[in-house]
């Protein structure tokens, strides 16, 4: 590859990534040469500026067609844009949460590691090749491992980081193992090439291997999105990490996980033959692979919903509670995928948007309260007396998480129900699980209501909230209600700017 070919590429399609990369590099250098005693909050503002620029670049690309560069390994299509948009916004919120006030300080590593993790996530959303996909995944994972363990002296953080490294390592290994079968079957790493080769005789003769590859990839990625039974790390890691990091893991990292999951499961396997035989007049043919593996996806979704919600019932620590709650939400998000509904991209994207707003909001509240003590469910007692506005914001997030109308969470859930019931045959099993899960979740979400409104408080002092957190709370609460009352904002936005079906076209 010479200079000329390199220059021919439409590099401008990578501007958002470049911006984040440059910001991260610049910040690490500034941090290195900056006086150790100096306040690092400047770095956060620089990082936020970088994210703002990246968002602007991304928005300017919205209406461009599909761009594929670097030997078709990097691909910018609607799907990638939609998910990158969410990740950038989510990371912006996380950084705002970390804005220090008079009593706290911030570490430089924390800021640029979040940016590199974000970069990994963005690469995952945009790659069309197993290699770049994997590199993106590793970049996100490795940065997250360090972020979790950043409080070196805290035993919980150490435990969390260790668990995360070991579990995450195993998970990526399993994904890679699955990918190796894909490569072995087709001799290609580009997922669009693989898609084309999946109909070949070699694959048809070895279709069980294709199914095996699919399932291995699912298992590996299930760790990333905390789907049960591969969720064990999440509660410990969420508890041990600092709250903004937890928010990052539960939102941005999960969005990246769903992005890679949708692309890697839908695209290469869409034409692949499955295990079931269909007898047609012309002889025997095979059902598609996505149909054959559906029962496993259904099972994964149901188990995730039930495990998340049932275990959340008994949690006393707020972060662990929200860890299980986010496991349950991962289960809801798996429903459209398992239903193979035509609404799958819309439903998942909208729900992730809602989830981003309500979950970051909830973690922002926990972040505020963790300044006083380790946050338990009982710490919420009497919060309404001490901090009415904070409580109202929290109520909005909780109602949205529980799926009560006039919140974004309800519209998202409505769309997921639609996706499961709008396909033929209707997925009653998935719907039943979601139903049970939703009712169970009322118990713990409204349990927090009981604490906040009905119980007397142990403390009398008002809660102090930093400016950054106030901004996050205001934006997320307003966004949750806005998307609940006027969902058409997001729905027409998707419709006008994103043609999700582009994802299938090489």
């Amino acid at each position, binding site marked *: 590859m010479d200079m000329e070919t390199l220059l021919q590429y439409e590099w401008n399609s990578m501007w958002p990534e470049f911006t984040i990369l440059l910001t991260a590099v610049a910040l690490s250098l500034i941090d290195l040469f900056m006086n150790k005693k100096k306040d690092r909050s400047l770095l956060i503002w620089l990082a936020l500026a970088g994210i703002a620029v990246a968002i602007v670049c991304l928005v300017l690309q919205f209406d461009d067609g599909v761009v594929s560069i670097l030997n078709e390994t990097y691909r910018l299509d609607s799907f990638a844009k939609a998910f990158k948009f969410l990740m950038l916004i989510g990371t912006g919120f996380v950084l705002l949460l970390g804005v220090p006030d008079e009593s706290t300080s911030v570490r430089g590593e924390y800021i640029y590691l979040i940016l590199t993790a974000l970069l990994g996530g963005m690469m995952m959303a945009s790659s069309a090749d197993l290699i770049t996909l994997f590199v993106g995944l590793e970049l996100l994972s490795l940065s997250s491992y360090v972020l979790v363990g950043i409080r070196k002296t805290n035993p919980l953080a150490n435990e969390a980081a260790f668990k995360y490294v070991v579990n995450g390592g195993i998970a990526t290994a399993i994904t890679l193992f699955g990918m190796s079968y894909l490569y072995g079957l087709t001799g290609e790493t580009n997922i669009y090439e693989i898609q084309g080769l999946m109909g070949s005789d070699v694959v048809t003769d070895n279709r069980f291997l294709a199914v095996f590859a699919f399932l291995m990839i699912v298992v590996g990625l299930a760790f990333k999105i905390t789907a049960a039974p591969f969720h064990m790390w999440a509660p410990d890691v969420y508890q041990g990490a600092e709250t903004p990091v937890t928010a990052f893991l539960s939102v941005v990292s999960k969005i990246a996980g769903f992005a890679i999951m949708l692309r890697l499961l839908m695209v290469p396997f869409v034409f692949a033959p499955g295990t079931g035989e269909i007898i047609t007049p012309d002889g025997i043919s095979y059902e598609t692979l996505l149909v054959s593996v559906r029962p496993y996806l259904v099972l994964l979704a149901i188990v995730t919903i039930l495990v998340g919600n049932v275990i959340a019932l008994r949690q006393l620590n707020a972060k662990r509670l929200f860890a299980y709650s986010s496991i349950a939400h991962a289960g809801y998000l798996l429903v459209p995928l398992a239903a193979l509904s035509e609404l799958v991209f819309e439903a998942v994207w909208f729900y992730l948007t809602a989830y981003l707003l309500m979950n970051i909001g909830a973690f922002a509240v926990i972040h505020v309260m963790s300044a006083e003590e380790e946050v338990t469910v009982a710490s919420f007692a009497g919060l309404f007396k001490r901090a009415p506005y904070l409580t109202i914001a929290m109520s909005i997030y909780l109602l949205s998480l529980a799926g009560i109308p006039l919140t974004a969470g309800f519209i998202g859930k409505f769309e997921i129900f639609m996706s499961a019931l709008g396909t033929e045959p209707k997925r009653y099993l998935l719907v039943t699980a979601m139903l049970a899960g939703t009712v169970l979740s009322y118990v713990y979400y409204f349990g927090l209501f009981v604490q906040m409104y*009905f119980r007397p408080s142990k403390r009398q002092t008002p809660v102090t909230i930093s400016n950054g957190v106030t901004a996050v709370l205001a934006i997320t609460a307003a966004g949750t209600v806005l998307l609940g009352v006027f969902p058409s904002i997001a729905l027409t936005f998707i419709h006008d700017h994103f043609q999700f079906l582009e994802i299938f076209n090489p």
Partner: protein
Amino acid sequence: MNESFLLTILILSPLLGIVLLSVMPGNHRFINYMGVLGTVLPLVLTLIVFSLFDRTVSGVQFVEYRQWFELMTSISPNEPYTVAYDLGVTGLSVLFLMLASLITFLASLTALRLKESAKGFYILFLLLELGLLGVFVSENLFLFFLFFEITLVSMFLLVGKWGGFNREKAAFSFMIYNGIGSILLLIVIIVLFVEMKTTNITELTMLLKETDSLEFLSGDTRTWLFVLLLIAFGIKLPIVPFHTWMVRVHVEAPIAVVMIHAGVLLKIGAYGLLRFGVGFFPQQLKDMAVVLAILGVINLLYGAFIALVQTELRSVLAYSSISHMGIVLLGVASFNTAGLQGAVFQTISHGLIAALLFLLVGVIVDRFHTTKLEELGGVASQAPLFAGFLLAAGLASLGLPGMSGFISEFLAFLGLFESMPVIGSVGILGLILTAVYMLRAVLAVTFGERRPLFDGIRDLTAVEIVPSAILLSIIIWIGVYPAVLSNTLQLARTIGIGG
């Protein structure tokens, strides 16, 4: 019918009170009065709707329609699922609307006694009213569900914060039971939505009636949907195995909230059953009429027997509500004009009677600080006015001719005997029991040995006499001149059967 915003203004009218209350300081002297004033505006608007409602034409009136949002799929972008904001009232919903605003207003008067955190109470109270009004003017299942959930959340907070000793437990079981009900309802709504591409109630009724099961939903699916609806609204009504939450709420919730709960909220169950159950799935209902009738008889008898042995006045009334709702079920099950009309009458009439009874229970709680039957007694001589109203309310409840309870039970049983005489005769037993437990409870409070402890107790004050008198006169009015309901109802047109 040209476009009007009357209904939108009506459902948003409680917001005015909410806004005014939230800017007032919490310890303001007039905060309670402000709360009461907040319920006056919706009442006035409802009266306007009620009087402007044209009783000579059929169909939905005061229709408002806006597109709210569309769900588009990338595969078929030209066939979006449209969710609309549409409002409208039929004869049936106008009656319920009237019931809701009236009882909310009267209930707000009884909350004037409230001393502690009245601001929050009235804000939630008005929010509850907003939900109630919305439920009855929604012409669209999506909106119906939305407002239904608003009542749920506000009710949860009202019970949990201002209730009695076991308030948290009551609030919780309220939330869980009704949460299950509402989710089941949501499933029905979504299945209808994905199949029919609309959530408009009138359109759905027409579509489901005109298409046979081959075209849209299969017969089996329809039966399942009907069963889900029956459970969803059965929890609300409540139908017997699902009633425990309702007894808890009756016993624990603050009196003003119980008045609304017994008077209006439970009636959403009957409203839903009549409007959606009867409207969407008449055939399925006919097939399952016997089951419904048996459930009704169980409700009627179970409620009556349990009420007979209760030692606490609120529990007596709670079980009495269950028993009376059995009659609604019986009326629906009979599936003829008389029976359905009886069901509607019974719902409205019981709403009024239950509100009156709980209003008086509120007086008991305020003056005597107990609702245990054995600790009460002989108050007839100390508080004659109160005793009189209580007796009248009790008589109305047991179905004394000349009061609304009689005409509704009469119609319901008339319908039932027409279609299922055997079940009807078993059910009659329940009516006798009603007289027994009601008189037992009322007499235990008013008559008996005069207790010196209660000497010098205040009789009803003006704020209590006015609402009691209003309720009682409406009860008698309906009893004497039931056409006041049936003219508006126009059953044959509203639900579209019988006649």
